[in-house]
């Protein structure tokens, strides 16, 4: 019944291979980003970090970075708030249309993002809104806030509703319950939802494609360069965006332990 050691070893190897498979293309991009030649060809003969210097000095890249950051930042904050309440409606409260609500939230996730972007473009046009990075925020929210809701809902499911009842029994108003019990207990879920929201928005391309108007985000610019012909800046900027995500994640993973250490010190 229990898997044999051989099965275990085989499955472990399979898992490692899967990870390798997922990251192999990034390795190729990484190599390409440090190739000196303007026309890429493997194996790479001469390595050079010149493209990085150029990318970092470029005004275009800085503008793209700023827009991507603004979009991702606003999407993060809004989807955390909307997702927090959405998750309570999704998982915690028993209300009449809960089943319907749960299913409605799933629909945007299932929806082809390019088509959603086009639909939004027509909608903005119909109500006379000129597309810019602001409208891209809206487009990202349609897809990302349901995901944030689901992430927080997982936390809300494991939350014991008698805690709220006990707080009410001891004299809390609905708002006090929210502040003292619900928010602190769901906070880990809200934080990871925010992290997901930021990273998904940062890397999203199909929703931005039609909704940014004259503005452009990093993934959009990369796509434009990829389809219009090779530019040596593409792998470089690509790796820079990945490095940005990785840095944020590293901070997010390390921050809790630093906070804990910092909290412990004054007490000791």
């Amino acid at each position, binding site marked *: 019944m229990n898997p044999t050691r051989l099965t275990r070893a085989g499955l472990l190897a399979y898992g490692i291979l899967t990870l390798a498979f997922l990251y192999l293309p990034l390795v190729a991009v990484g190599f390409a980003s440090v190739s000196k030649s303007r026309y890429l060809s493997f194996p790479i003969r001469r390595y050079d970090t010149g493209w990085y210097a150029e990318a970092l000095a470029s005004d275009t890249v800085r503008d793209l970075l700023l827009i991507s950051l603004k979009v991702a930042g606003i999407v993060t904050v809004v989807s955390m708030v909307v997702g927090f309440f959405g998750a309570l409606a999704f998982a915690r409260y028993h209300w009449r249309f809960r089943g319907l609500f749960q299913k409605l939230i799933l629909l945007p996730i299932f929806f082809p993002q390019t088509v959603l972007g086009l639909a939004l473009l*027509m909608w903005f046009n119909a109500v006379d809104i000129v597309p810019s990075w602001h409208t891209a925020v809206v487009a990202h929210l349609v897809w990302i806030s*349901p995901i944030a809701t689901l992430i927080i809902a997982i936390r809300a499911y494991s939350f014991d509703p008698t805690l709220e009842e006990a707080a009410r029994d001891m004299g809390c108003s609905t708002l006090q319950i929210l502040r003292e019990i619900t928010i602190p207990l769901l906070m880990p879920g809200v934080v990871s939802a925010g992290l997901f929201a930021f990273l998904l928005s940062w890397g999203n391309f199909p929703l931005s494609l039609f909704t940014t108007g004259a503005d452009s985000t990093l993934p959009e610019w990369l796509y434009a360069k990829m389809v219009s012909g090779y530019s040596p800046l593409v792998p470089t900027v690509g790796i820079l965006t990945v490095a940005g995500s990785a840095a944020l994640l590293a901070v997010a993973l390390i921050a809790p332990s630093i906070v804990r250490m910092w909290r412990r010190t004054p007490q000791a």
Partner: protein
Amino acid sequence: MERLDRRLGALCATPMLLLLGLTFLAPLVVVAAFSIMPEKVFDLWHQPDFSAYVEVIRQGYWTSVAWALGMALVATVILFLICWPLAYAMAKVYRRFTLVLTIGVVLSLFVSENIRLFGWVLTLMKGGLIEGHLRAWFGTGFDGLLYNVPVIIFGLVYVYLPFMLFPLAQGIAMIPDDARQAAYDLGASRRRVLWEIDLPLAAPGIVVGGLLTFVLAAGAIAESKLLGGQAVIVIADDVETAFTYGQNWPLGSALAMVLIAIIGSIAIVGVSRIDLDAIMGRRR
């Protein structure tokens, strides 16, 4: 308390409902409205007709629909087969490696899809990571592996792997070990246990995983564009072209409606059959 629950539930759902109403349902209504406008108009103040739908049928767009659905189906089946052992191992065999794998797979999702596909282009192209090194080491190269149908399916499998893997692992985690143990104890073979216990009990995860990958793959564009070149055109690509190069919003809308109708009906039928509370781990 029940009354309070009901009030608070509706109240908490309001921001999300407003958001989705204004940015998801309203745009869909606009798409539907544009799809019954005459050719090449950019506003909705015209006599409705069905010329765009006639165009959809007359120009034989059904081939791109068939390509999209066919490739999505193949990719879904392949993904199920390659993800099942991995999901099983994540739920029942691995211990700490489950966390490593989960984090590894989730992290890959945060890298823009087009960067990852571009990486595959660099890997598979003539003079790319594979062919270039083969030629350098053995002196014989080949023509590169891009721009055909199998590579598009490969791209779909690559991009949507997490969407099959995680629901499957969640579904398999819901199989009680006792039930499997009991089945062995009662004399079932491994294959029988898979068939009689594992598959039925993991069904919610299989449905969610299959649904997600199929629907997302059917609406995907980047794989066929970046990896497939112009080998085949999928319906989502047609939609985009109609809007951009064609500047024909009604035609694009009609094509989008076809795609929405297919994906929407599959998604709605599938979603209505699953108990989200059970899958997401409700305690009560």
